[in-house]
């Protein structure tokens, strides 16, 4: 079984609107994205809201195109382009947050995207917790996750929080365990 089908099947086995902490290694990154966006979200006919605090959304979008993943139902909240001064041309599927320290604005933009297409089932990806931890202290980050996850749960939305295994500290593990229903790792590369 490939990494992509593995993650899709694991997610499929979870109760609706679960919050998942997904521990991944760098080399699994694109397979994971394919599994979530191209297999799981597609099968469930969900819109995906992709929050990036790591790579500018334009780069992710380019990668998705190379992977031939349909981006019609994928929306981005990009918290990194502006501080990296790499917004360039604004993508119609992207909303930009000034910086990854604006956690409230991040939540507001996610809320906006959910509201704008109310009624449709949705999935939110947070990529990733380690980058957010560079810009925010752990206290404010836990408060943020708590509010975000509870809010999304109340709106019947899946939440998938990426954590890069190499960079996950014990503090982060505890925090993720506290807010998420499920913690997942994947076998193989």
């Amino acid at each position: 079984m490939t990494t992509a089908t593995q993650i899709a099947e694991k997610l499929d086995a979870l109760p609706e609107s679960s919050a998942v902490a997904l521990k991944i290694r760098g080399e699994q990154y694109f397979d994971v994205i394919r599994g979530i966006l191209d297999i799981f979200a597609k099968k469930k006919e969900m819109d995906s809201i992709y929050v990036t605090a790591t790579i500018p959304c334009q780069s992710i979008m380019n990668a998705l195109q190379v992977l031939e993943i349909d981006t019609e139902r994928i929306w981005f909240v990009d918290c990194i382009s502006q501080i990296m001064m790499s917004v360039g041309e604004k993508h119609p599927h992207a909303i930009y947050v000034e910086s990854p320290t604006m956690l409230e604005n991040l939540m507001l933009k996610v809320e906006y995207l959910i509201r704008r297409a109310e009624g449709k089932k949705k999935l939110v990806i947070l990529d990733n917790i380690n980058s957010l931890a560079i810009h925010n202290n752990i206290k404010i980050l836990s408060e943020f996750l708590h509010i975000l996850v509870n809010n999304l749960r109340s709106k019947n939305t899946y939440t998938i929080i990426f954590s890069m295994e190499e960079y996950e500290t014990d503090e982060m593990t505890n925090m993720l365990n506290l807010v998420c229903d499920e913690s997942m790792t994947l076998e193989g590369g």
Partner: protein
Amino acid sequence: MLGRDARDRRERCKTGIEGLDNILNGGVPRGNTVLVTGSVGTGKTSLCLEFLVHGSNSNEPGLYVSVTEPCDKLLKNIIPYDFFDESLITDGKLHFIDLPIVYERLGLEKAEFDFEEVAILISAIASIVHELGIKRLVIDSITSVCYRLKSQENIRDFILKLGSVLSEMGCTSFLVSEISPAEERYSLYGVEEAIADGVIVTGNLERRGDLLRTLQVVKMRGTMHSRAKYVLDLTTVGVLLVPLLKGGSVAGGG
């Protein structure tokens, strides 16, 4: 215990702004006069307009009384809400009136109103509300009206009487008040906030170089409510609110 139950049973006027209704435990107690106050450009007008539009969408006709800015200019700049249709206006569910025109019709041309003229103004507003069956009223801004009232007694009298007349008709009102950010009180004359049934404050908050728009319900008679600060976003789906993160003891939280 009885007191609390009774209070929570007061009928609510759901603002339709989900975040605000949650803060207010279901909405503004019907008939309340609420001061919406904050420094320039913090979203007071947008918040009030949205309150009216949601009302007129759910069979509660609304009236916007503009004092500072002509209504047609205001309507040109309105946020293109998904839930706002011009037909609300043409169907008579949402009304806009320029107060200077009302002054003119009433012959209130003086720069300063006395007791009697205050009474004339109140009864004029009351009869419009009555005739049009208005359930939600906005006056934007009350500060400009207060300029003409000069004395604290007159302002007190105006808000008190207006509030009670409107309340009797089951009309819930938002009165916009302008203050500078440095001000310690919530209104220019300091009396408005004491008389109003509720005070909603909008503002700007700087945190480690980031500027956030905030909203806080400081007071609301007739309901329990959160007094925490929220971060606000003005969007085409309306005002969105999330709690201001405190993050333990992060400096500069203001």
